[in-house]
C-alpha cells in the first residue's frame, strides 16, 4: 500500500498530541518516583495527592473561583454578544468589538500586570480592594472569561435566523420576553460551551492569578507550578490523570448527547 503524505502526518500529529498525556497517565500508576524505572503498578500517588492538604485547598479555591467566574462571565458575555449582534443603533460597536476580542490574544503577563497595577492604584484611591486574593482573581477571571463567552455566543447569534426572534416580537412578545422565550433556549448550547470554556480557562490560569493574587490565596495552578518547577512530581501526574479522566468523560458524554439530537 502506498503511503500518502497527509494521513501519515495526521497520525504522527495525533501521536504528538496524545503521547505526553498518555505518559502522564501511565507514570501516575508507577510505583517508582523515577521516570526511567518502572516500579510496578500502584495507586500510591493518588493516595499522596489526596493527602496533600495544600493541593486540596488550592483545588477547592480554584474550583470555586472557576465556577463563580464562569457563571458571571456567561451573563456578562451574553449581554455583550446581544449588544454586538442584535442591538441596532448602538454607537461605538467597533470599539466594543475591539474591547471584547483583545483579551483573547493579549498575553497573560500583560493582563496580569495591568490588573494588578489597577488594583494597587484603586486601593490607594478608594481603599478597595482591601486585600488581594479570592475577589481580585475572580474579577480577573470574569474579565477574560466574558470575552471568550461573548465570542462563542456572538457566533451562535450570527448563525441564528433573526427572523425567529422577529416572529416572536411580531406575535406580541416584549423584547425581554423574546429573549427569554426564544433567544435563550436557542443559544443554550453556546452558553454551556461558553461556561465550560470560561471554567476551564479559569481553572488553568497561572500567570494572571499569580499577579493579582495576594499572600494566602494560592490557586491550583500556582501550587502545581511551584512544585513542578523543581522537577517531576508523581502526585501531580496523578492529578493530571484525574483531570484527563474527568475531561474525557465530559467531552464524550457531550458528544454522544449532541449526536442523539437530530
Amino acid at each position, binding site marked *: 500500500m502506498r503511503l500518502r503524505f497527509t494521513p501519515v502526518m495526521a497520525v504522527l500529529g495525533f501521536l504528538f498530541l496524545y503521547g505526553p498525556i498518555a505518559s502522564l497517565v501511565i507514570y501516575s500508576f508507577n510505583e517508582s518516583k523515577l521516570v526511567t524505572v518502572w516500579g510496578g503498578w500502584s495507586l500510591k500517588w493518588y493516595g499522596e495527592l489526596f493527602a496533600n492538604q495544600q493541593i486540596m485547598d488550592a483545588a477547592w479555591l480554584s474550583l470555586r473561583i472557576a465556577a463563580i467566574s464562569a457563571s458571571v462571565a456567561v451573563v456578562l458575555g451574553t449581554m455583550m454578544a446581544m449588544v454586538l449582534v442584535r442591538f441596532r443603533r448602538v454607537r461605538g460597536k467597533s470599539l466594543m468589538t475591539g474591547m471584547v476580542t483583545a483579551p483573547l490574544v493579549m498575553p497573560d503577563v500583560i493582563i496580569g500586570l495591568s490588573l494588578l497595577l489597577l488594583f494597587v492604584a484603586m486601593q490607594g484611591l478608594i481603599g478597595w480592594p482591601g486585600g488581594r486574593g479570592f475577589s481580585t482573581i475572580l474579577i480577573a477571571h470574569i474579565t477574560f472569561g466574558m470575552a471568550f463567552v461573548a465570542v462563542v455566543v456572538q457566533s451562535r447569534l450570527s448563525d441564528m435566523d433573526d427572523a425567529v426572534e*422577529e*416572529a416572536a416580537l411580531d*406575535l406580541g412578545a*416584549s423584547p425581554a420576553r423574546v429573549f427569554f422565550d*426564544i433567544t435563550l433556549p436557542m443559544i443554550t448550547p453556546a452558553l454551556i460551551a461558553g461556561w465550560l470554556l470560561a471554567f476551564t480557562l479559569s481553572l488553568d490560569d497561572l500567570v494572571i492569578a499569580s499577579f493579582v493574587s495576594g499572600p494566602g490565596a494560592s490557586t491550583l495552578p500556582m501550587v502545581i507550578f511551584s512544585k513542578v518547577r523543581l522537577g517531576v512530581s508523581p502526585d501531580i501526574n496523578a492529578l493530571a490523570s484525574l483531570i484527563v479522566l474527568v475531561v474525557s468523560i465530559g467531552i464524550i458524554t457531550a458528544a454522544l448527547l449532541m449526536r442523539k439530537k437530530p
Partner: protein
Amino acid sequence: MGETILAAEARPWREATQKPFVRIRGISKLFGDLAAVDDVSLDIYQGELFCLLGGSGCGKSTLLRMLAGFETPSKGHIEIDGQEMTGIAANLRPTNMMFQSYALFPHMSVEKNVAYGLLREGVPKTEAMARTADMLSLVKLEGFARRRPQQLSGGQQQRVALARSLIKQPKLLLLDEPLGALDKKLREETQFELIRIQEDLGVTFIVVTHDQEEAMTLSTRIGVMDRGRIVQVGEPRQIYEAPDTKFVADFIGSVNIFDGEVDAAAPDMMRVNTPEGAILCPPLPGLKAHQKVHVAVRPERIQLSRGPIKAANTLQGIVDEVAYMGNLSVYRVRLEGGRCLKVTAANGLHEENPITWDEAVHIGWSAAASTVLTK
C-alpha cells in the same frame, strides 16, 4: 360581524369615496446613502390581497418590514385602520407577519408555535389551545400538533407559519415570499389554498413576491416596485395589458420592445417609426411628433404563418429557434434587419408539418396589440 364583502369583487379602489385601510404616505428608508424605499405612497383597502412585486433589492421586503415595525421609516407615515403607526413597536402593532424562512420556533411544538401569539396576548390557556386546534384544522394540520417543526415537510412548515401568523386574527397580514421555499407544483396548489383562507377570514393580505405568475394568480391588485419606487399599481389584467412603463412591460411576462419616434397621429391610429419599419398603434393623447417612444408587443399577440398575413403590422423573417413547451411553442424570428422577435403560438393536436427552423415566415399583429410607452 356583517357579511364579508370580498374586495376582489367589490373593487373598492375604483371608487374615490372608499376609505383605504392601509395608508402609506411618502415613505422612504435610507440605509446609509442608499434609498431602499424611495418616497412610496400607497392605499390598500380592507379585504384586499395586495402583491408587492419586484426583483431582488427593489425595496419590497423593506417596505413590508416597515409595515410590521421591524424597520423605522426615514421619512413618511403609515396608517393602519385609521391609526398612525409611527413610534409603535412591532409587538404592539395590529399586524402579523409570515416570514420567508417561516421562522418557526425550533424548540417548540407546532401547537406551541401557533398558540404563542395568543398566550402573549393573555388569552387563557384552554381557550388558546381550542383556537389553536381550530386554526390547525383550517390549515389541515390536525394530526401534527405535537410535532417539532423540523419533523415536518416544507409545505407543512409553511402552513404552520401561516397558522401562527393568523391566530391573533390580525387586521393586516404581511407575507414575505410565502410560497418562495416550495417547489413549483406545491406552490401552485398552495396559491389557491392561500386565496381560500384569505377569503374565508376576510383578513387584508399584503404579499411580497418576486414571482410575477404568483402575483397574477393571487392578487386583487399588484404594486410593481423598481429601485425603491412603486412604478405601477393596478389589477393584474391592467398591469399585463396596459403597462405604464417599459420596465413593467418587460418585468411582467415576455414582451418585444421596439424603440422609435412618433411619426404622425390620426384620431384613430398612430404611426411610430422604428428601425424595423413603421408600426401602427392605438393613439395616445398628448404625444408630439418626433417624440421618442417604445412600442411593446406581447409574443402571443403576434400571428405567425408561412403565407402573407392580413394585419395592421406585418413583417417577414426566418425562424431562428423553436422551443417546444408542450401547450405552446416559442419561436425566435430573425427579421430582415437582423433583429429577433419572440412569437408564441398554441400547439394544436397532431399538427401536421409545424413551422420549424430556417423557414421563411410572415408575422403580423393588430394595431390594438401594440402598446405605446413613453417611459
